[in-house]
C-alpha cells in the first residue's frame, strides 16, 4: 500500500486524481484499460465507466451498492471478485472507491481517456420505419421493397433483371407459397390471364390455400426441433403430432406472430387457457430426453431447460445464448447472470424421467385431447354394443342359474356313493435317466441321487381292490428334496412339470382316463394336460412350492382286479432343467364320482344348507356353475372383447408444458449443474428492451417481453428468416446470429421496413409474404448475368430472382404432385412412406417397427412423415434434413452423389416415376408429342424448347425400340399392378421419361 496511508475519516472529500485514479490504475487497467477492454469496459475513461460494459454501469454516482465496480471488488465468489486471479483490494482502497461514488463520483475533465462507450449494436435498437429512398427508375418498383433494393442497385449502376416469364413465375410462387408446383391447367390459365390483377388474384388464392400452412410449417418445425421420438438410445415414439397440426393451422389462419409466440412459450399460463393454447406449448416439450439406464433425471432436466433457453434465444432473438451458459458472452453484451435469469423462467418444469435405479422411463407431462367426432361416434357405437352384449349375458346367466337347484340335488344324490381311497403298493420303480429312489414306510417312493435334466418314471403297481374308478397321485414333500419339494428343481422353486400320466395294464394296453382334477394347477399348466396324450403340455405347480399336492385321474370305466391286478404307470417329465417329481404316493379309488371334476370345496358348499351359506360361498358356487355353461362362457368372452375395444378408443395425447414447483435458480458455474453459484431472479437481458410493466414473473412475462413492440430483435429475426426462405439467403446472412459477430444486413433499411410493417400489420405473416411476392425484386428472372458474375456473384444485391434446390420435404412433395400421387389429407398421426428395410435398427428398447403405410398415407406430404431422431427418413437426410435433435435455423444446401442415387433408386421415387409414366401414358388425347409436352409441362411448368422436344422424342423412340427388342426389360420397369394396362411397352417408355424428368435439376429447383 501507499506509504503515508491513513484511514479515511467520515467527511473527508475524496480527491479523484490523487486517491481514486491510482487504485484503478494499479488494479484495473490491465484488463479494463487502454490495451484491453474485457467485458467491453474501460475504467480509464469516464464516459465508458459511467455507461459500463456488458454488465451495466460500473459506477452509479451516489449509489455504491448499485455500482458494479463495488459489487465486483467486494464479491465473495472467487470467480466474480475483481481483480480476478489477484489479491483483493485492501479495505482502505475499497473505502476510497465507495466514498468516491457516494460523493457523486466526481471525475474532473482531462483525466484519463476521452473514449466513448461503443455505439449500441444496430440490432439492439428498436427498428423505426425508414424513409423511402428515391430512385431513378421508379416505374420498376412495385412496392416499397423495390425502392430499397433498387436504390442500392442504382448506386452500383446495376439494372435489375426483367420479370420472369409467367409460367416460371407461377411455378416459383406456387413452390414458395404452397410447396408444390402448379398443375398444367393452372399454369396455362395464368399464362393466358390478361387481367392486370391476375398475379394478385393468384397470390391471394395461394395465401388462402390450406397448403400454405403445410409448406410454411416445415421451417418452423426445424426451429421447434419437432420430431416424433425422444432421441438418444431408447428413442421411443411419443405422441406430439397435435403440435405439428397446431402450427399448420395457426399459419393457415395467419395467427398474429405475437400470439403465435406467446401461445407456444406460455400458452399454459394464459388466463382461461384453451386446449389449443396448451397444445401450442408442445414447442418447448420437443427437447430430447434421455431415458438410458442410470441417467440422472435432474441432469436431464437441466439439459432440457438449457435447450429451451438456447432455442428461445435462437428462434426469437437471433441470439446465441449458449456461450453465456459458462461465462459472459465474449462479443455480445450479455452476461452469464442474465443467462440464468432467462433460465429461471424455464426452471419451473418437472422432471421428465423417472427410474428405479435400473430402468428409466419418460414421464413428462402429457395431455389427453378430447375424442374426435369420429372417435366419439365409434365410442358411442361400441358402448351401445357393450350394453347389448351385457343384456344377453345377464339373460343367459339367469336362465342357466335356474337349473342350479336341480344340479345340487343331483350332486348330493351322487355323493351317497362317496369315493373311498386304497393305497397302492409300488412294486417297482425305475428312473429312465438314472435317478435313484428309496421306498418309504408310508408307501411312497422318494426319488434321490442324480437329477437328470428330463426323466420318465416307470412304476409297476399291484392292487387287490376291485372296481377301481380312479387313481390318485400325491406329490409329497420331504426334507431331502430341494426346498422340501415336491419337485426336484432348485430349492427356491422346487417345481415339477408332469407332461403325461400314462396308465396301462401289464401287457401295455392303455387304460383310458377321462377326467383330472388337482388341488392346484399352475396357470397354463392345468392337470388335464397330464392325460391329453400331448407331450408338449403338462401339469405343474409354481408357485405353490414346499407343500404336497394331489391330482386325481378318473377312469372311463371301472377296473376289475379279479383278486389281484398289476398295472404299469409311466410319468413323463421332459420339460428339462430337472423339473421332476421328488416323492410319489399312489392310491386307487372306488365308489363313484358321478359329478366328475367337482372339487371338494364345491361339494362342501353344496352340502351346506342354503340358509347357512356365506355370501362368498354362494358366489363361489354360482360362479362355478356358470363357468360350466358354454353359452355363458361364450357370451362373457364377447362382452370382454367389446370392453377391450372400448378401452382401445383412446384419446390422442400430446406433450405440454406445465409448471411444477417453484425452484430457486442459481448461476451454474462453468455451466455445471453440480456447481451452483449465486441465486438469481427471472429477468431479461439488460441491453434489450425492458420488461413491460405488467409482465408477470413467469414464462408469460418472458413471452410478452419477446413480442413487445420495443423488442428490437423479434420482428427483424422473423422477417429475415422468411426473406431467406424465399430468396435463398437472408438480408442478414447469419439468420441465427444478429449479434456483433453476425453479418450486417445487406439492406438495413429494407429489414427495418419489413420489421415495422410486420408489427404494424398486427404481426401478420401473410402480409409480409404478400408484400415480398408482389415486389418486382421477387418477380425477376433468375437467370445469371455475365455482368454480375464479378460484381455480385452471390446475388446479394438482388439484381436477379432466386434460384436454388428445393429442400428435402419439397422434393418429395414436388415429385408426388408431378406424378399425381399426392394426397391432400391434412393432419393426424405421422405416416410411414416406403424406405429401405432395416433403417430403424439404431435403437435400444421399445423399438417401434417401421410399418410402411399403404393407401393414402403412403403418398402424403413430407411434413407428415414420421420423424425418428435416431433414423430420420433416409431420403430427407440425403437432402440435408437435420435429425431435429436440436434447433436448426438454416439447413445446408449441398449437392452430393447420394442425392443423385436417391432420386434414381429410392423405391419411393420409383413409385412416383411409375405413376407419372402412367399419367402420361393414359392421357386421353394423345399423340406422342402431345404427351411429351404434357409430361414436360407437368414437371417444370413450361413448354419444352424445340431442342428439348427433340431430345425427348429421340429418347422416346430409342427406348421404345429397345423395349420392343426386349420386352422383359419393360416388365421390370412397369409395376405389377400396371401390367394389365394397354401397350405396356409404351408405358415402360413413359415411365423412363417420367423418371428422367423427375431427376432434372430444373425439376428439383426453384427458379
Amino acid at each position, binding site marked *: 500500500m501507499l506509504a503515508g496511508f491513513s484511514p479515511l475519516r467520515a467527511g473527508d472529500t475524496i480527491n479523484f486524481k490523487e486517491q481514486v485514479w491510482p487504485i484503478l490504475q494499479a488494479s484495473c487497467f490491465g484488463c479494463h484499460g487502454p490495451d484491453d477492454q474485457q467485458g467491453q469496459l474501460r475504467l480509464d475513461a469516464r464516459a465508458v465507466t459511467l455507461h459500463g460494459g456488458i454488465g451495466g454501469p460500473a459506477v452509479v454516482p451516489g449509489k455504491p451498492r448499485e455500482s458494479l465496480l463495488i459489487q465486483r471488488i467486494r464479491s465473495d465468489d472467487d470467480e466474480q471478485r475483481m481483480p480476478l486471479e489477484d489479491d483483493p483490494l485492501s479495505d482502505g482502497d475499497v473505502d476510497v472507491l465507495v466514498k468516491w461514488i457516494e460523493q457523486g463520483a466526481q471525475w474532473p475533465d482531462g483525466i484519463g481517456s476521452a473514449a466513448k462507450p461503443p455505439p449500441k449494436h444496430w440490432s439492439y435498437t428498436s427498428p423505426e420505419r425508414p424513409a423511402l429512398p428515391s430512385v431513378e427508375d421508379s416505374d420498376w418498383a412495385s412496392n416499397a421493397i423495390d425502392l430499397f433494393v433498387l436504390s442500392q442497385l442504382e448506386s452500383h449502376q446495376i439494372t435489375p433483371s426483367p420479370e420472369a416469364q409467367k409460367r416460371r413465375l407461377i411455378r416459383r410462387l406456387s413452390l414458395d407459397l404452397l410447396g408444390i408446383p402448379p398443375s398444367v391447367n393452372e399454369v396455362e390459365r395464368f399464362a393466358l390471364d390478361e387481367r392486370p390483377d391476375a398475379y394478385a388474384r393468384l397470390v391471394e388464392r395461394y395465401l388462402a390455400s390450406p397448403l400454405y400452412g403445410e409448406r410454411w410449417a416445415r421451417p418452423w418445425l426445424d426451429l421447434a426441433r419437432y420430431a416424433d421420438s425422444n432421441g438418444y438410445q431408447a428413442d421411443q415414439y411419443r405422441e406430439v403430432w397435435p403440435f405439428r397440426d397446431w402450427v399448420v393451422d395457426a399459419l393457415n389462419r395467419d395467427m398474429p406472430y405475437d400470439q403465435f409466440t406467446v401461445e407456444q412459450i406460455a400458452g399454459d399460463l394464459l388466463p382461461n387457457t384453451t386446449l389449443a393454447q396448451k397444445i401450442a406449448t408442445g414447442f418447448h416439450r420437443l427437447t430430447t430426453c434421455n431415458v438410458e439406464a442410470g441417467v440422472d433425471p435432474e441432469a436431464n432436466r437441466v439439459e432440457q431447460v438449457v435447450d429451451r433457453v438456447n432455442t428461445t434465444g435462437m428462434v426469437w432473438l437471433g441470439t446465441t445464448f449458449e456461450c453465456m451458459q459458462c461465462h459472459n458472452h465474449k462479443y455480445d453484451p450479455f452476461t452469464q447472470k442474465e443467462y440464468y435469469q432467462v433460465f429461471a423462467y424455464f426452471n419451473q418444469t418437472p422432471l421428465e424421467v423417472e427410474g428405479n435405479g435400473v430402468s428409466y422411463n419418460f414421464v413428462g407431462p402429457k395431455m389427453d385431447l378430447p375424442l374426435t367426432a369420429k372417435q366419439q361416434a365409434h365410442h358411442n357405437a361400441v358402448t351401445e354394443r357393450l350394453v347389448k352384449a351385457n343384456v344377453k349375458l345377464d339373460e343367459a346367466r339367469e336362465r342357466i342359474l335356474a337349473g342350479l337347484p336341480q344340479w345340487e340335488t343331483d350332486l348330493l344324490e351322487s355323493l351317497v356313493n362317496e369315493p373311498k381311497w386304497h393305497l397302492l403298493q409300488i412294486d417297482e420303480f425305475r428312473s429312465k435317466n438314472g435317478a435313484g429312489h428309496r421306498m418309504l414306510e408310508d408307501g411312497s417312493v422318494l426319488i434321490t441321487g442324480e437329477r437328470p435334466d428330463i426323466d420318465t418314471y416307470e412304476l409297476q403297481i399291484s392292487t387287490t381292490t376291485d372296481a377301481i374308478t380312479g387313481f390318485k397321485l400325491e406329490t409329497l414333500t420331504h426334507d431331502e428334496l430341494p426346498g422340501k419339494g415336491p419337485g426336484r428343481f432348485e430349492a427356491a422353486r422346487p417345481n415339477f412339470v408332469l407332461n403325461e400320466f400314462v396308465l396301462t395294464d401289464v401287457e401295455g394296453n392303455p387304460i383310458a382316463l377321462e377326467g383330472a382334477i388337482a388341488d392346484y394347477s399352475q396357470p397354463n399348466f392345468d392337470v388335464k394336460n397330464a392325460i391329453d396324450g400331448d407331450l408338449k403340455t403338462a401339469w405343474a405347480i409354481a408357485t405353490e412350492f414346499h407343500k404336497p399336492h394331489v391330482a386325481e385321474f378318473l377312469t372311463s370305466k371301472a377296473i376289475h382286479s379279479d383278486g389281484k391286478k398289476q398295472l404299469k404307470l409311466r410319468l413323463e417329465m421332459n420339460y428339462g432343467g430337472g423339473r421332476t417329481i421328488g416323492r410319489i404316493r399312489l392310491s386307487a379309488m372306488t365308489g363313484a364320482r358321478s359329478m366328475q371334476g367337482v372339487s371338494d370345496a364345491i361339494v362342501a358348499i353344496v352340502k351346506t344348507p342354503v340358509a347357512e351359506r356365506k355370501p362368498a360361498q354362494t358366489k363361489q358356487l354360482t360362479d362355478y356353475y356358470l363357468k360350466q355353461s358354454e353359452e355363458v362362457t361364450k357370451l362373457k368372452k364377447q362382452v370382454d372383447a367389446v370392453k377391450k375395444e372400448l378401452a382401445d378408443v383412446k384419446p390422442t395425447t400430446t406433450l405440454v408444458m406445465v409448471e411444477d414447483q417453484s425452484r430457486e435458480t442459481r448461476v451454474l458455474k462453468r455451466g455445471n449443474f453440480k456447481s451452483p453459484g449465486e441465486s438469481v431472479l427471472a429477468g431479461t437481458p439488460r441491453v434489450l428492451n425492458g420488461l413491460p410493466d405488467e409482465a408477470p414473473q413467469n414464462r408469460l412475462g418472458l413471452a410478452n417481453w419477446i413480442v413487445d413492440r420495443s423488442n428490437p430483435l423479434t420482428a427483424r429475426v422473423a422477417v429475415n428468416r422468411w426473406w431467406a426462405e424465399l430468396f435463398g439467403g437472408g438480408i442478414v446472412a447469419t439468420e441465427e446470429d444478429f449479434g456483433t459477430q453476425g453479418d450486417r444486413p445487406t439492406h438495413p433499411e429494407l429489414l427495418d421496413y419489413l420489421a415495422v410493417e410486420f408489427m404494424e400489420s398486427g404481426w401478420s405473416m401473410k402480409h409480409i409474404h404478400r408484400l415480398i411476392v408482389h415486389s418486382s425484386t421477387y418477380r425477376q428472372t433468375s437467370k445469371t448475368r455475365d455482368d454480375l458474375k464479378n460484381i455480385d456473384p452471390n446475388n446479394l444485391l438482388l439484381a436477379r430472382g432466386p434460384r436454388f434446390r428445393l429442400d428435402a420435404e419439397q422434393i418429395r412433395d414436388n415429385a408426388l404432385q408431378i406424378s399425381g400421387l399426392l394426397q391432400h389429407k391434412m393432419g393426424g398421426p405421422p405416416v410411414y412412406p416406403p424406405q429401405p428395410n*432395416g433403417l430403424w435398427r439404431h435403437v435400444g428398447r421399445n423399438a417401434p417397427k417401421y410399418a410402411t403405410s399403404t393407401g393414402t398415407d403412403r403418398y402424403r406430404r413430407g411434413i407428415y412423415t414420421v420423424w425418428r431422431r435416431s433414423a430420420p427418413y433416409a431420403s430427407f437426410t440425403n437432402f440435408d434434413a437435420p435429425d431435429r435433435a436440436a434447433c436448426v435455423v438454416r439447413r445446408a444446401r449441398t449437392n452430393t452423389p447420394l442425392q443423385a*442415387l436417391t432420386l434414381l433408386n429410392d423405391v419411393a421415387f420409383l413409385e412416383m416415376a411409375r405413376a407419372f409414366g402412367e399419367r402420361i401414358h393414359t392421357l386421353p388425347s394423345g399423340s406422342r408429342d402431345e404427351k411429351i409436352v404434357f409430361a414436360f409441362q407437368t414437371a417444370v411448368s413450361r413448354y419444352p424448347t424445340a431442342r428439348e422436344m427433340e431430345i425427348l422424342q429421340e429418347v422416346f423412340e430409342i427406348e421404345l425400340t429397345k423395349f420392343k427388342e426386349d420386352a422383359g426389360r419393360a416388365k421390370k420397369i412397369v409395376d405389377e399392378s400396371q401390367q394389365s394396362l394397354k401397350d405396356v411397352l409404351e408405358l415402360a417408355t413413359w415411365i423412363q421419361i417420367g423418371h*428422367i424428368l423427375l431427376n432434372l435439376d430444373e425439376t428439383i429447383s426453384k427458379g
Partner: protein
Amino acid sequence: MNNFDDAMLDLTRRELFQSAGMGIGAAALSSLLMAEGTYAAETSNRMDLSPQVGQFAPKAKNVIFLHMIGAPSHLDLFVDKPKLREMDGEKCPEELFEGQRFAFLRGHPTMYGSTFDFQKHGESGHTFSDVLPNLAAVADELAFIETMHTDQFNHGPAQLVFQTGFQRFGRPCMGSWASYGLGSLNQNLPAFVVLITGSVGGAGNSMWGSGFLPTIYQGVEFRSSGDPVLFLSNPNDISAADRRKVIEVINSRNLEQFKDVGDDEIKTRIGQYEMAFRMQSSVPELMDISQEPDHIHALYGSDPSKSGFANNCLLARRLVERGVRFVQLFDQGWDHHGGLVNGLKNKAKQVDQPVAGLIKDLKQRGLLDETLVIWGAEFGRTPMVQGDRKSAGRDHHKDAFCVWMAGGGIKGGSRYGQTDEFGYHPVENAVTVPDFHATVLHLIGLDHEQLTYRYQGRDFRLTDVSGSVLTELIA
C-alpha cells in the same frame, strides 16, 4: 482447374452436343466428365470436398477410429492393478464413492479385482490381459493413454462427447471436422465412411453427424446387409447400361439448363450424377471382400459369407487404400454391468484378431505409417463390482479409461498418464477428450485452434475452448 480450362471444357461440351445432335447416346460425355472428376470442387464455393492442406505437415493421411460402444473395462484388458486384486471383495475406500454419482452403484460398493491374467508384452512392456493375445503381439505399435477422462457417465451423452466434444446434439463429429478440414482424396467414394457392427449406441447417427457443418461432411454408413450405401443399387434389376443411358439424358438436359440459366450448381449436379454412377461400381467392388486371398482372411478372421467386426476391419483397410480418409467403426456390446468375465472374453475374442490383423496388414502394405488407428470408448468402468459377484460386472466410470493409438505419427510403445492403484483417478497427466481430439487433428495436419467454422456468430472448434496436443505420443 483454372478458369481457362473450365471455359474450354464448356466449349468442348457445347460442340459435342451440337455435333452429336442432343447428345443422346453421347457416350463421350460421360468419359469427358469422368476424366475431369472434380466437378464438385471446382464449382462450389461454400462447401466442397476438394483436397485441402492442413496447417501442419500431416503425420497421417488416414484415420481408422474403432469405437467400442458400451465402454469396455480398462481394468480387465489393459490396466493391471495388484492392489485392486488384493482388496477384492473389500468395501471400497470411502473417497472413491463419497460424493460420486454413479449410473447404477448405490450404497457402499465393494472392490472387484480382475480375474484375468495379465502379462507384459514387447519391448514396450505394455500390459494386456490374456484375452487379447493377438493385440499383445503388436504391443510395440501401440501408444496408450491411460488417463482419458470425460464428464459424462451415461452412454448417450458420453458418446457425443467422445465423438463431437459436446454432450448435447448438434455438433459435428471428429470425422466430419476432418473431412471439412482435409477434403477428399478420391472421386469415387465418400470422404468419411462409417461401418457398424451390431446396433448403434445411444447417441445414434449423431455420432457420425456433421452437426452444424454442411451435411456433405457427415459420415456415410456402408451397411453390411442390403444396399451397402442407401439407394446404391438399381432397383428391379435395371442394368448398368440402362442406368447409364438415363444418367446421360439427365445430364445432357441439365447441361442445356445450365447454358440457359448459368447456375454453377447445375454443373455440380452433373458431376454428382457421374459420381453416383461411379459409386455404383466402386462401392460393390470395395465391399466385395471375397477377392481377398485366404491368408488375408486368416489374418483378420474375416469371412466373406458373413458380416461382422472382422470384415469391417478388412473393409477399413480397403477404404483407406482407395483414398477414404476417415473410417469410423462402431462395435456394440461392451456394456458389462454383469457377466463381465464371459461377456468380456467373448467381445475380446471378436475384436482381438481383427484389430491386430488390421495393424499387421496395414504395416505389411506400408500403409501403417500414413494411417492412424485409434481404439477407444466413451468411458471406462469402475473398480467396484456391480451386481452379484457370481455374475460380476462393473459400472460406468468417467474419470479414467484407456484409449490407444497406432500408426501414422504415433510413437509406438509409448504410454501416457498414470492412474492410481485402482485405475480410478489419474494421478499424473490426465487427458481430456479435447486433448485427444487436438492430438488426432494434429496428426492429420490440422491445428485444432485454427480449424473453425463460423456458426451463430461464433467460430466453433471441435475442441471448443481447450485441448492440448499430446506431443509425448507423437513420433
